[in-house]
């Protein structure tokens, strides 16, 4: 009897383990485009999806999503639009408006039973975007994002007396809520706000803005590389994390560093004005007007060692 039970147990185990082979991702295929049924102004990227953001054109209108992935994964890839209420208050009057947020998710489960090497790429065509939310382990790249003047949607701000520079110009908000992906954002707008809340993602920002504001929270561990971002007016940097933040501005940098992360700045082409405030607990601040741009190179995992060597050489200068 015991022997029979053992045999049954062995057979059952073999069947269960054997069935694991059926958990495959399937052949990688580019599927017919999905057309979203509503416009969106915010996009949130989750899970492990590699995303390319492209401005819409005649062939690909806004809301077109092209997905390339395994045949067995496609049913678990969702592209949903969710309403988001945004508020503003002016002169005691609170006004709200509903924007649409496109959320990209990979809902496939039991991934440990499948091969970890698989393709999951998405190309999203947009019309207007003023907020990017990253909570992803994927690789995200964009074409030139021009931001969006979302203030014009608030009826309470239509009073010309309330019009400010901000309300006339396009904004772009980058929010990193989590993940460990690699995000490369190209932009050309008036005001860029970057808020790195949590995670180990590397963010590379490039392009031209008038005002830039970069915040790294306590749980920000990845690099914020703004070496190729040119802020013509000012660049405000708050470093609370353990990471490296690279900022660059033509005119003015205002920065504070409250943790062991490093903030590096580069002045470009003409003298700037540096103001720092707050305290620099165990942090480092390089005030060296003659920083040689040769020391600065685009960061990558493979080049980080060389990069750190260059940092050391800067530090060791008298």
């Amino acid at each position: 009897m015991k022997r029979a039970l053992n045999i049954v147990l062995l057979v059952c185990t073999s069947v269960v383990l054997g069935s694991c082979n059926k958990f495959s991702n399937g052949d990688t295929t580019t599927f017919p485009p999905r057309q979203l049924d509503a416009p969106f102004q915010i996009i949130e990227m989750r899970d492990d999806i590699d995303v390319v953001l492209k401005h819409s054109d005649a062939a690909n209108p806004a809301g077109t999503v092209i997905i390339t992935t395994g045949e067995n994964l496609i049913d678990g890839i969702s592209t949903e639009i969710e309403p988001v209420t945004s508020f503003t208050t002016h002169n005691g009057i609170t006004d709200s408006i509903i924007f649409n947020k496109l959320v990209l998710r990979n809902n496939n489960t039991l991934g440990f039973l499948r091969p970890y090497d698989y393709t999951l790429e998405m190309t999203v065509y947009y019309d207007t975007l003023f907020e990017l939310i990253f909570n992803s382990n994927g690789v995200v790249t964009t074409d030139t994002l021009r931001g969006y003047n979302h203030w014009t949607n608030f009826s309470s701000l239509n009073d010309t007396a309330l019009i400010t520079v901000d309300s006339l110009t396009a904004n772009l908000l980058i929010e990193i809520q989590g993940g460990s992906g690699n995000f490369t954002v190209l932009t050309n707008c008036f005001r860029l706000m970057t808020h790195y809340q949590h995670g180990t993602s590397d963010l590379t920002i490039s392009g031209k803005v008038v005002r830039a504001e970069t915040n790294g929270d306590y749980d920000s561990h990845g690099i914020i590389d703004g070496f190729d971002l040119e802020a013509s007016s000012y660049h405000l940097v708050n470093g609370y994390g353990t990471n490296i933040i690279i900022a660059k501005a033509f005119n003015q940098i205002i920065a504070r560093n409250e943790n062991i992360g490093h903030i590096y700045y580069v002045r470009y082409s003409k003298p700037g004005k540096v103001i720092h405030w707050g305290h620099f607990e165990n942090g480092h601040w390089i005030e060296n007007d003659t920083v040689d741009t040769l020391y600065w190179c685009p960061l990558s995992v493979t080049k980080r060692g060389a990069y750190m060597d260059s940092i050391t050489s800067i530090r060791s200068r008298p």
Partner: protein
Amino acid sequence: MKILKAHRVLLLVLLMVGSIRVWGQDYPWLSHNNLMVEARGHVGVFWHHHFEMQRFNARYPAFEASIYQSTYGKNDWESDFFYPYMGVTFYYANFGFNFENHPEVGDALGSVFALYPFINYPLNPGENSQLTFKLGVGLGYLTKRFHNFDNYYNFSIGSHLNAAVNLSFEYRQRFTPRLMGVASFGLTHFSNGSTKLPNYGLNTFSAALGLAYYLRDPRINQAITRRPEYKPFEFDNKHWLSLDVNYGIGFKNVSQTLGGDSTHFYRVHDLSTYLLAQFTPHSRAGVGLSLVLDLSDDKTMPGRDTIFFETYQLTRLNFNLCYVLTMERLSYYFEFGWHLKYNHIPLFKGNIYQKVTARYQLSDNIYAHLGLMTHFGRADYLCFGLGYRFNQKYYFNHEKSTKHRPPGLH
């Protein structure tokens, strides 16, 4: 000539003495202790409970070698637990040698060498085939750890030296009287108990196959019935109510995430009390209260720049339900508890916690303990200290009437 004769006598004496030492004291140490050796190969997958670490999802091989004793009833508790296996395991895994060939996994996580004592409880009394549960706790050395510039992707491991915990279910099949096959599935966890942050911990699940071998013919288990059966008329059904009071201290270093002196450790003070009742020879259960002062909260609490506290206001009051498993002097305490809101401190760690404590009874009343506080798998602090137990014997009402009654008088 006399010298030569004396040499012969001396040689003869030495041989005799040597013979006596070798054969006269034939102590069958190996068979007496029922020692076994075992080798096992694993295929593991990571179970990252933080999304960021999922970039390192991969399968990897691991190996372990163990030497252990198959208990045979030398102590009473061994027969109660179906003669568990006790020993020590050496574990090695190269996280970078994964089957998907992702070199970045090895660059960030490296490899691990661990050594942990374990106890392996059979779940059924079978002699030829057994299901067992293995519990091991020891130390692990991970070659890679967090560095805010060089290795910031790995924020699971904050220090090279970590605790290694293994929990696994095993199936053991005896092939010959001395050879066993072993198949297992289990969880291996590495973390430093938040003594050095960041410390989200590294969890791996693995399936393994191996062989175990008795170094000498196994001893026959001494029967459970060796212990006299307790009868109401000869055992008074006494129960023990115990009140435990203990103090523990832990240490935390936050310099890698929040700056400050890298040699400075914040202290964690833990004053706990438990009221426990015994309901089987090896099990007790009850409730507990504790006061915990984690001085690193002042550094790690969100919004600490805008909210200011006196040190005593960081103290938390906790309530818990507790189960205790005892094997002679060693006990495991399993707590499931709640942080009671106290002094309007935000419960940023969550208000539910779990705590596992190992205790060793130094005397009838004094014990040493080592405990790990967690919030759903995320270690909060590791503490150690001493405690005192107040024991109180008691009877239930219906038992009092029958105690110490000789047979025939009921």
